[in-house]
């Protein structure tokens, strides 16, 4: 009898625990946030929150914009806590933050500092730490308007763009967990993707440089190739390489890099070696790519890549004077005791860089077309 009672009690307890107790809530009873924009206007904090309408009906809440699938709700307040309270007062359902794909700071807010809101996200347990953080212009509504026709939320669209570019190394890691680690460090400087609304599309147009938690400068996308080589382990990019009177379009794959650092006469030095594999995709002439031309393409390509790298390093050493490449980590690992007492920003600004490139150029290897082979009779012509 006692055994039966125990088993019955256990079955009851186990089934009770499957209900998630007090935390159980129907998905339809929650407001699923997909994008959060944090802004600043006239000394007031602003939240724009994009919610997914699960029913697919018309917008609900007191939003300014919105469409059939998504609702945008705006709230303002003197502090983040007050802004959140103002937001909650407008919403019929409790907000669920586990579905947020992107948190965007407006430029004005990023200039004030991103650290406080990042700390807030650290302690709001529902936030995924893998979500991406970006910076946008102050006109946040334009971002939502540009995505109006899309079947995806603004957050999902931006996240998909960032993930797609990350696969080819053409963006940088801006996950919340990575940013929290940077913000906790002694030398915190990093890049955040900067998105703008352009012709009803959301466009990654460059990177915002965040130093000590504040936005300090902007690097446009056309100056960012070197940044990708320095920050990512795998990058694919395309160059138009001039040779003789012609141009060759070459796809370059970064295969690996080796960073060596040394400290001589109170001078930080970096020797960075890059391994590339390059594929000639096509030429702007019907003439063949001879071995002489091939060597010229290789040399010119090396110059173009070196230019990109130099631009990236010079920008980081001059304009914001910030090591957003985390190169200090290489130095810390090799000279942990010297690094402890260093003023890294100053040392980094004066550091000397040397690049060496190994490019393995393959003309037309991937396709069933080899521009180097001619009809034999052509030699007689």
């Amino acid at each position: 009898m006692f055994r039966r009672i125990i088993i019955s009690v256990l079955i009851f307890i186990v089934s009770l625990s499957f209900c998630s107790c007090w935390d159980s809530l129907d998905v339809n009873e929650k407001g699923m946030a997909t994008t959060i924009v944090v802004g600043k206007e006239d000394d007031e904090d602003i939240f724009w929150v994009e919610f997914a309408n699960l029913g697919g009906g018309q917008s609900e809440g007191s939003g300014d914009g919105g469409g059939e699938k998504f609702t945008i709700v705006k709230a303002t307040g003197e502090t983040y806590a007050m802004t959140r309270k103002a937001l909650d007062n407008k919403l019929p359902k409790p907000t669920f933050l586990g579905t947020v794909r992107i948190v965007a700071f407006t430029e004005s807010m990023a200039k004030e500092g991103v650290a406080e809101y990042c700390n807030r996200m650290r302690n709001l347990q529902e936030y995924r730490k893998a979500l991406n953080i970006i910076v946008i212009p102050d006109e946040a509504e334009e971002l939502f308007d540009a995505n109006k026709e899309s079947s995806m939320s603004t957050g999902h669209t931006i996240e998909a763009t960032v993930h797609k570019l990350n696969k080819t190394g053409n963006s940088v890691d801006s996950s919340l967990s990575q940013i929290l680690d940077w913000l906790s460090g002694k030398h915190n400087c990093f890049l955040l993707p900067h998105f703008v609304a352009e012709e009803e599309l959301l466009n990654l147009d460059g990177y915002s440089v965040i130093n000590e938690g504040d936005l300090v400068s902007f690097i446009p996308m056309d100056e960012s190739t070197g940044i990708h080589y320095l920050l990512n382990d795998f990058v694919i990019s395309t160059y138009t390489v001039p040779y003789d009177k012609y141009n060759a379009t070459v796809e370059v794959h970064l295969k690996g890099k080796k960073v060596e650092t040394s400290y001589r006469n109170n001078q930080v030095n970096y020797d960075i070696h890059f391994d590339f594999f390059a594929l000639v995709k096509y030429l702007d002439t019907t003439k063949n790519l001879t071995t002489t031309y091939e060597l010229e393409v290789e040399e010119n390509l090396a110059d173009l890549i070196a230019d990109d790298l130099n631009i990236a390093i010079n920008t980081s050493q001059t304009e914001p004077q910030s090591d957003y490449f985390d190169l200090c980590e290489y130095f810390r690992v090799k000279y942990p005791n010297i690094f402890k007492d260093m003023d890294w920003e100053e040392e980094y600004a004066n550091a000397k860089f040397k690049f060496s490139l190994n490019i393995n150029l393959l003309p037309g290897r991937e396709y069933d077309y080899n521009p180097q082979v001619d009809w034999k009779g052509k030699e007689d012509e």
Partner: protein
Amino acid sequence: MNNYITNRQIAFLLFLTLTSYSVVDIARAMAASAGYGSWLTILVASLLFAFIGLVIISLNYRFKGDMICDYSKKLTGNFISIVITMYYIFYFFLIVVFLNTQLSSILEAEFIPRTPRAVTMAVSIPIFCFIAYKGVITVGRLVEYYGLIYLIIMAAVFIIMLTQESTMRIRPFFNEADAYLYFQALREAIFPFLGIEILLVIPLSHKNGKSVKTTVFLAIISIGLFYALVVESTILKLGMNDIMHYNNSAIVAIRDMELSFLNFLKRLDVLFLTVGFSGFFMGISVVYTAILELLSKLIPKAKRWLLIMIIGVISFILAMIVLESQAFTEFVLDTGRYLGLIAALVIPITLLILSKVKKYV
């Protein structure tokens, strides 16, 4: 089926008892004290505790079929034996109350924030008690199954975590200038290895053979290697700067992981919520079993079901009293390690010396 605890079961029993809670916060504790050399401190600590494990298992091996309250009576007499047994009951009670409060605290902080902690404990304690009521042999069989699943899944999760970021984040692996820090951090490495004293309530059989000593030694070294894996991968994932902010650092690191190539299991925290917590549950159940076994020996006429109900109710009440007490947590993490050293080292080594003096073979 065997009617004794096999060597493999002993290995998994140690594994679950030691790692179930410690795996959650060991990375933060070690990173804060030993920094980049945490792995070294842990491995040195595992070697020290492997020898302590050898002392305990040698004692059990000398008195086959007995547990500490039996052979302490033979070695020290009735009164001191009762005192020793009472000490272990008090110590295990302290640990079980601590583990219950920590379990409910982790569940509240990381998974079910709105569910009152009292409810979490009211649901879990009867299950622990039921497992303990079934006795040491059943617990041994259970830990063998749960332990294997726990070991495979958790090791896989932390190995995958090691591939998520650059190893620059956990280097330099050794810095001569910080060697003194690594040595000092041994103090922090004591608590994760406490739990080996549970062996004192596991009676050995003739069938265990001499290889049980090798099993225990290797099991503790393996636990050290597992801890080193957990610490290094968690630091790698969260970064040395940020890890200091999280008490439940391993859970936070697991929640940070999103594996895009695993379509059916992008987020791995569900694995901790299932496999990780099942290991935690088993670890607590083992401690309840130890209390019940000791009390049964102390009050042989009392019914086991009555004793376990009393233990369950008392542990629930005590856990409720200290539920929000930071002082209690600090007491267990600080003073508890010395009480643990008395239980795991001082008493067993004294009894082992006495057994040699009195020529028990």
